[in-house]
């Protein structure tokens, strides 16, 4: 962020609100986000919850943060590093300090830097005074005291009073970045409708923080303004990857003229989709909390057999458990969607951290030749689109579709232009009724078998996981038939490639020296890195692959248009190996397995290096 003396314009800012789990940082962040969206900025946010449910107050593992990146142009990631760090206690400072840019601003609640809190955070001495924060700007404020003063007239208990601290801080930051407070006031009044005293206290704290900014002489710190981004007109809201997915599934099912049975077993970070859908029974969604992931997958399969769209969701370990059942859906050629919210592995791994290391599992995590469709969502709003695509492909091709998202994406948020009801898609999924010449594995010209649903007179039939005769659907052990069916299952999935968009180049020239290839939630990081490299004058393009199985038919041609292919993934090279095997291109990998998003600066470096080598 380029600061100037008076309230001056900056292009983009990254703020990280950090405090104890009890300090209300998620709430603060969300309110700041809404105001920012209303200010017309583009933005991306990412919450960072502690792994523990409720860690002891003041400990480092109890720190909860919320990061927002906003600006006057396209914002694609929550930001590699932070311009402003709000640290409500020493633990928050300790955990987050290394995300702060050198020269960045720390806003710290001095009142919370007590000996006890310092020692809980593992500090031997006070970092605000011992030189630790020397490389940064420091705004050390007695937030606790100011807050209590602001709410004094309301005669709250000290505890209740102190709970308003986050609003004081929010007020200060809203002054600093010139955000409107009206939506926050509205929200407070709605939220605390039944506790007028609290509504008033929070409002008072918010205003006090704002006034403090306006009036106090803050050494070296002044107000900034961030010009609105150019965005299309329309109605907006912020959506997370979870909301995008969930709403997309509902919209997709309507488009397919079917309903959803969503069967799942809770697991981080997949559960929120289940939670969201659990309250949508009116929209044709029955959710089912199964006894385990296998049952969840099987309930989905049973539902699809019975004529609704069975969907299941999980994360790493749970997806591994579903392999056998997915194989049954492949063999019986039933529609099914499997949502895989990837997290860091192997095994239990780091459940709250992001990774893209389940791609090869998606393709091969079952016995036998068992092809399925695989799609990946790139952003919260893309999650909406991809979910609709998953419904379309599953119901029109009678196949399981694995839809990949991850720990980062399910929680990330961005502003979203609400689609017009008239623009919503429609692709009714046909069900069989014709009894003449019917058999359950009779394929149409696309190689797709009929969806013949129990309850339909005259279509009574039996299916199962044993190999089936191509011409009858009856059990068959015939060698040539098995080859034919194996080929037919593969061909059916390949045929989807005729029915998906061609691969495009996301940015940069259509052919050239270098293309960076990615998939899934790293889209924003890669796009940003490529843009930055382009700004540096480097010749580099970006290809983002949404359809991972089947791959777009023209992908080979697109990639072969570049001298070098760099595949950037949060894994040890999974898409990389697919592309090398398939197209025999000497692609190289930019692989990071840290539980965190690809860093923009890191990737820009690698782009430089690769181009350097080619010289």
């Amino acid at each position: 962020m380029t600061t100037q003396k008076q309230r001056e314009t900056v292009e983009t800012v990254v703020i990280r609100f950090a405090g104890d789990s009890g300090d209300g940082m998620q709430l603060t962040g969300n309110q700041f986000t809404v105001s920012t969206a209303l200010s017309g900025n583009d933005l991306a946010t990412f919450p960072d919850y502690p792994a523990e449910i409720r860690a002891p107050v003041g400990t480092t593992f109890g720190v909860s943060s919320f990061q927002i990146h906003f600006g006057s142009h396209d914002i694609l990631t929550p930001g590699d590093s932070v311009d402003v760090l709000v640290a409500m206690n020493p633990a928050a400072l300790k955990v987050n300090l290394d995300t702060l840019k050198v020269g960045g601003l720390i806003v710290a609640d001095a009142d919370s830097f007590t000996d006890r809190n310092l020692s809980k955070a593992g500090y031997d001495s006070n970092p605000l005074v011992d030189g630790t924060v020397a490389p940064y700007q420091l705004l050390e404020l007695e937030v606790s005291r100011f807050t209590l003063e602001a709410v004094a007239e309301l005669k709250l208990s000290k505890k209740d009073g102190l709970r308003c601290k986050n609003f004081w801080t929010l007020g200060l930051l809203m002054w600093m970045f010139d955000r409107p407070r009206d939506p926050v006031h509205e929200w407070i009044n709605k939220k605390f409708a039944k506790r007028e005293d609290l509504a008033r206290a929070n409002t008072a704290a918010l205003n006090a923080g704002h006034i403090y900014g306006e009036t106090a002489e803050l050494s070296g710190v002044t107000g900034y303004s961030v010009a609105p981004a150019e965005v299309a007109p329309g109605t907006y809201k912020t959506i997370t990857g979870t909301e995008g997915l969930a709403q997309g599934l509902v919209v997709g099912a309507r488009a397919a003229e079917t309903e959803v049975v969503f069967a799942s077993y809770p697991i981080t970070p997949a559960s929120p989709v289940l939670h969201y859908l659990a309250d949508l029974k009116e929209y044709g969604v029955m959710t089912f909390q199964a006894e385990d992931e296998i049952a969840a997958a099987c309930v989905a399969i049973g539902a699809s057999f019975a004529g609704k769209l069975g969907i299941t969701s999980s994360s790493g370990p749970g997806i591994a458990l579903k392999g056998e059942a997915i194989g049954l859906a492949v063999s019986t050629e039933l529609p099914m969607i499997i949502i895989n919210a990837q997290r860091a592995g192997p095994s239990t791994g780091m459940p709250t951290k992001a990774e893209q290391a389940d791609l090869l599992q998606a393709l091969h995590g079952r016995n036998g030749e068992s092809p399925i469709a695989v799609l990946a969502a790139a952003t919260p709003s893309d999650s909406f689109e991809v979910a609709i695509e998953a419904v379309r492909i599953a119901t029109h091709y009678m196949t399981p579709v694995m839809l990949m998202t991850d720990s980062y994406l399910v929680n990330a948020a961005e502003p979203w232009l609400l689609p017009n009801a008239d623009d919503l898609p429609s692709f009714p999924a046909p069900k069989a009724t014709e009894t003449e010449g019917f058999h359950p594995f009779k394929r149409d010209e696309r190689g797709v078998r009929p969806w013949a649903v129990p309850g339909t007179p005259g279509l009574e039939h039996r299916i199962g996981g044993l190999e089936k005769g191509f011409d009858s659907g009856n059990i068959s052990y015939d060698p040539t038939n098995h080859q034919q069916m194996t080929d037919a299952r593969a061909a059916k999935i390949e045929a989807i490639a005729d029915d998906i968009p061609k691969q495009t180049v996301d940015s940069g020239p259509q052919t050239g020296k270098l293309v960076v290839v990615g998939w899934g939630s790293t889209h924003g990081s890669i796009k940003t890195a490529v843009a930055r490299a382009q700004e540096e004058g480097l010749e580099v393009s970006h290809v983002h692959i949404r359809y991972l199985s089947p791959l777009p038919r023209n992908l080979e041609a697109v990639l072969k248009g570049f001298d070098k292919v760099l595949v950037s993934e949060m894994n040890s090279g999974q898409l990389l190996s697919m592309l090398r095997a398939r197209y025999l291109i000497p692609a190289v990998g930019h692989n990071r397995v840290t539980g965190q998003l690809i860093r923009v600066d890191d990737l820009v470096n690698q782009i430089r290096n690769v181009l350097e080598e080619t010289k």
Partner: protein
Amino acid sequence: MTGSTVELKAKDFASDQEVRWCPGCGDYAILKAVQRTLPGLGVPKENFVFVSGIGCSSRFPYYMSTYGFHTIHGRGPAIATGVKVANPELDVWLITGDGDALSIGGNHLIHLLRRNVNLQVLLFNNEIYGLTKGQYSPTSKRGTRSPTSPRGSVEHPLSAGWLAMGAGAHFVARSIDTAKELTTVLTRAHEHKGTSLVEILQNCIVFNDGVFEAVTDRATAADRQIHVEHGKPLVFGKEKNLGLKLKAGSLTVEVVTIGGNGITTDDIMVHNEKDKVLAALLLGMEAPEFPVALGVIYCDPAPTYEQMLYEQVREESPTLDSLLNRGQTWEVV
């Protein structure tokens, strides 16, 4: 096209597939009993769905001319649940074996029972893994010699009935492959709204021939079987002169002879199919001390899963707009 209005006969439920169980297998008799039972249930043929796992028994759906799904080992209960959640109108029958239901599928069975999804479970208990060639199963008696237990198995067997009660089942019955009462039990199971578990003692002629002989042998069957009926005294024996009597002040029963030792019919317990503790007691009775209890042992209906689920729907098909517009929105002009 088989319309739903046609009068159906048992043979209308036979599919065109050649039945491939071993000659003499108890599964044949069960197949016939089911085919005899269905026409009387008043259900349109296209609404029947037979779901099974894997095992000899699980081949069953192929031999029925209804909708059928031969799924994967142990997962039948979950697949069947999915069918019912999607469409509660369908009439679902789950076919499973002692290995399929109690070994790999034990957990799904328990959860099916406690959720009380409205369907029938026919558990073909032959105390062996038939399809995989004769390994001992969770219901095999301790000491059973088999390819995986050449020195005798060292596992205490499970009782399907006790397990079902432990899981909170609302309907538990027991019958025998060749028993003519089987159709009656199946009809009762169908009547019951909720998950109905019917354990069927089934003879595997190849790998476990005669394992139930002590119970089923026609010569002695009357003394070894007690056919329970709600509201009727718990009597058995060729002369119906044997009965179960509660030992005073305890929770145990004894077999007594009516007429002997001053015992009258009044001393005999009356079967109450709603009594959970009695059901557990009856299901736990083992030969040779006790007769084996057959018939509907427990039936105490409760709301079904899908009924409660669908009752939660608040309105019919609201517009998608109302969903998309949820939450805080803003306008850009």
